[in-house]
């Protein structure tokens, strides 16, 4: 029972309190790049959830089973990048073979995710920063992905409405998106310090 509560608090913490985009400021390029349309944002978010979960498990395994026994923990970043990049490649090939529709929907986003620093960030948090167990690392991966999806959907909703607004010329487009992202991040600061 105690363990379940622990997992729940990790999940809520990763989704709201330590939201990867709005509190930790990781993965900002897709946050601004893909948040212009709600549909694209949702697709990207789900792709990130999937890759984040899988890469959390894989990087945890490789960290615990290879890097720690060999005492070369400091090589973690290189190894993780190698692992994540080849894993995403593999997934892309698999999807292309099994489901062309899914490939068309996810096609451009999967390679983009490889270079998403949020994925590497989660892998590092799981292993060195927090030192989670495997179930905790998995939950953290899923929850961080959900947090990313939440941030992306919130931002896409705001930006779709902003498109109809009539701001001064210097503000229209990306500058306004930056301002609203900052306000959104401020709002998420309200979650900080919450004890679960």
């Amino acid at each position, binding site marked *: 029972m105690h363990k379940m509560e622990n997992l729940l608090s990790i999940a809520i913490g990763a989704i709201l309190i330590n939201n990867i985009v709005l509190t930790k400021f990781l993965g900002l390029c897709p946050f601004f790049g893909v948040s212009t349309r709600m549909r694209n944002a949702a697709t990207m978010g789900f792709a990130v959830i999937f890759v984040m979960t899988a890469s959390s498990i894989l990087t945890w395994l490789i960290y615990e089973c290879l890097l720690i026994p060999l005492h070369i923990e400091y*090589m973690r970043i290189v190894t993780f990048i*190698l692992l994540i990049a*080849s894993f995403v*490649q*593999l997934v892309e*090939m*698999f999807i*292309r*073979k099994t489901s062309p529709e899914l490939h068309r929907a996810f096609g451009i986003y999967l390679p983009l995710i490889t270079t998403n620093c949020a994925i590497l960030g989660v892998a590092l948090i799981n292993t060195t920063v927090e030192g989670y167990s495997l179930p905790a690392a998995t939950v953290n991966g899923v929850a961080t992905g959900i947090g990313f999806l939440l941030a992306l959907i919130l931002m896409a909703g705001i930006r779709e409405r902003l498109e109809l607004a*009539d701001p001064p010329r210097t503000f229209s487009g990306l500058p306004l998106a930056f301002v609203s992202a900052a306000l959104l991040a401020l709002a998420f600061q309200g979650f900080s310090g919450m004890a679960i």
Partner: protein
Amino acid sequence: MIEEIVLLCLLGLAFGSGLELASRKFAVRVDERIEKIRGLLPGLNCGACGFGGCDDFAAALVGGSSLINACKQIAPAERRGIGGILGIEVKEEKPEVAVVACTGESKVAFEYRGVKECTAAANLMGGFLECKYGCLGFGDCARACPSGAIKVENRRAAVDDGRCTGCGICVNVCPRGLIKLFPRDAKVLRMCNSPERGKIVASVCEKGCIACGLCERECSIKAIKMENNLPVIDQELCNGCGDCVKACPRGVLRLLSPRDQEPIGESSPRGRIPAGNPINQT
């Protein structure tokens, strides 16, 4: 030190060979013509053909070669190349250019403060202009244009002929139906789309066509006919002498500016038009 190097090499080797195996196992057989055709398509992904992009269009072409004319942007050489791959004869298409048929001089009927989009403005009491056929100038067309050829200046959309590829997306976007495609070798264009009677047009717009018929009378080769209170120019007949442009009292007719077309030699009929023609100085 050695451990790290060996480990990384082994990992790289393992992942690399794993991917290689996977790429063989999951290889998707693709019709090689699709890739060849894709290489010959313009790659603008404008979607004017009705498909999601050039990739989809290339795949569709292999399925049904009659679709080739759906893409207006393929250069003639590439078009022939695609025809060769598909084993069909390709007809030569005349390149086209989009033109916004409005001078943008209509009086304003009321102040509009709604959503800054033509579609929204056109739906509110028929638009905020006195002329119900005039350009609203919020640039729906400019946003839709995949090649950035349309700009809104002084509340009126204008097409940069040099950038326009003639894809025709803007034609369907304009709620007023003002944009039309003309062959690039068209000589005289009409810049008004109002079929109202002359008196009504004269009361709402400084530069609208009042259907006086002077252009029809001035044309020595009878290439202009008045239909629905507007001059219709037969581009096949027209030799570009420019008499109608000079005759028009409202400046509605315009010569397609020379940079729109291939360089024009001395023998071209266009050469006869005096350089100081006010309508040419747009």
